């Protein structure tokens, strides 16, 4: 873990609420190894109502450019301020934090299911799987077409399937009702998104005996194991979602009890 100032290289507004922000260490030092599923804690300056940092997943790491990508949905004051960043701004980060998705050695069929901005860590994960020589299916959901973000990027690393609530793109309805889940047999599922979606995915995986990892977004104060605020109930008792997670194997969680 490190605390480091980053410089904002670009801030692209992807739709009404979501921004893709690319940052690089201000002192030009090389990024340490970062794994898909890990996150950063961003210091939010200049807000009278925000005291704590905000946890945001690593969306992508561009090694050549020494760049970290952050995909951020401006839903409250903290994310709202972060999304106001302009090129050249400083951003203080703690990183890389937390556990990562397991990249299995074996070949097989991989499905990465994301909802809303929960797709963020899946891009980097897809890239890593692709680099290992396995290509995967992405199943992404959102309210409507404009909420399916980074389509071009995902398509580089696998096959993209989508579901939108209003049917404006891909199948109509929730991802968890997508026909793909009936038609294809997977060996591994990785998922990140709203809790109800992840629970539905987890149930599907469980029912079908598929290995499944989920990425949680528990409320966090520190992000590095010091406060014990972010706990998740597991079969081993309460553990910190920021250090033992955010990525958990479904088997460890008590969701389906």
């Amino acid at each position, binding site marked *: 873990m490190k605390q480091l100032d980053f410089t904002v290289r670009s801030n692209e507004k992807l739709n009404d609420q979501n921004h893709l922000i690319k940052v690089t260490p201000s002192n030009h030092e090389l990024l340490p190894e970062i794994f898909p599923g890990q996150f950063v804690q961003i210091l939010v300056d200049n807000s009278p109502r925000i*005291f704590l940092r905000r946890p945001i997943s690593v969306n992508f790491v561009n090694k050549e450019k020494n760049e970290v990508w952050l995909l951020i949905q401006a839903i409250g004051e903290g994310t709202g301020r972060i999304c106001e960043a302009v090129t050249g701004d400083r951003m203080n980060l703690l990183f890389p934090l937390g556990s990562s998705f397991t990249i299995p050695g074996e070949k097989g069929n991989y499905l990465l299911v994301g909802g809303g901005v929960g797709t963020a860590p899946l891009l980097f994960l897809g890239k890593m799987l692709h680099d290992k020589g396995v290509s995967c299916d992405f199943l992404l959901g959102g309210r409507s077409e404009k909420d399916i973000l980074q389509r071009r990027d995902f398509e580089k690393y696998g096959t993209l399937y989508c579901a939108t609530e209003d049917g404006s793109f891909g199948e109509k309805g929730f991802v968890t009702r997508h026909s793909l889940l009936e038609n294809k047999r997977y060996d591994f599922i990785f998922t990140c998104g709203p809790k109800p979606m992840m629970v539905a995915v987890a149930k599907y995986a469980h029912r079908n005996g598929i290995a499944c990892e989920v990425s949680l977004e528990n*409320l966090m104060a520190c992000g590095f194991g010091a406060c014990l605020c972010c706990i998740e109930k597991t079969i081993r008792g309460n553990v910190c979602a920021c250090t033992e997670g955010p990525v958990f194997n479904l088997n460890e969680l008590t969701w389906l009890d």
Partner: protein
Amino acid sequence: MARLEVQIGDLQLRNPVMTASGTFGYGTEYSDFIDLGRLGGVFVKGTTLEPREGNDYPRMAETPSGMLNSVGLQNKGVDYFVEHLYPVIKDYDTHMIVNVSGSTIEDYVACAAKLAGLDKMPAIELNISCPNVKEGGMAFGTSCASAASVTRAVREVYPKTLIVKLSPNVTDIAEIARSVEAEGADAVSLVNTFLGMAIDVERRKPKLSTITGGLSGPCIKPIALRMVWQVYHAVNIPIIGMGGITNWQDAIEFILAGADAIQIGTYNFVDPAASVKIVDGINDYLDRHHISSVNELVGGMNHF
């Protein structure tokens, strides 16, 4: 930097800057961010006789210039500490002090007795002020009689430096401080968190699973500072001040109000390197004001 040294009971601290229990894990969590050897001391997470799972999620809520928590003393118990954690942390180049919590006097005593035997543990901090446990905890810190009796009982089994941590949720904190001083506490530390609450108005539910929790951070600083000042005028033992410290100015405020040393709590979450920055800031301040030892500043407000 000899002029930063301070004495708390038998403890000789390198400098007056320490980190607060429950906000600094076992030190280990911060070793990537700072050199622990630059700190006066580290107060580790509240430790109880038996292991505790703590309270249910959610355990935290952000508030204006602060946060509420209801962790509830999640820890693996003192035996686990002695066997598995102590061996790791005992060689850190700073004072590692255990924060001892409990629900009954017997718990406190048994826990303290087990810690008394550890060579490299020069002190304990008796947490009689945790608002996040159903019984005991804060209750001990809110009356003179109970504060005195738990201090007396622990004093009997614990010969090393005994620091008693006071609750701010009282009418007269000076009176409680006097009562633990009378029972042989070597120092007092204050303040623990204030009992507070926050409600999610859209869901019409408390933001914490426990309804109420402990408030910490800059929001409490003015009250904590006043309490340190009151206790300074009430006791003769050293005072460790805390509550909302974020920078060297805050630290100097506490020292001027009467604290011999200070602890940084919640702000470690925001800036894990805050504590060492504060060490440097205090040093610069002493230089700039031509003060030869930090001890001269303690309670050193000018007359007006």
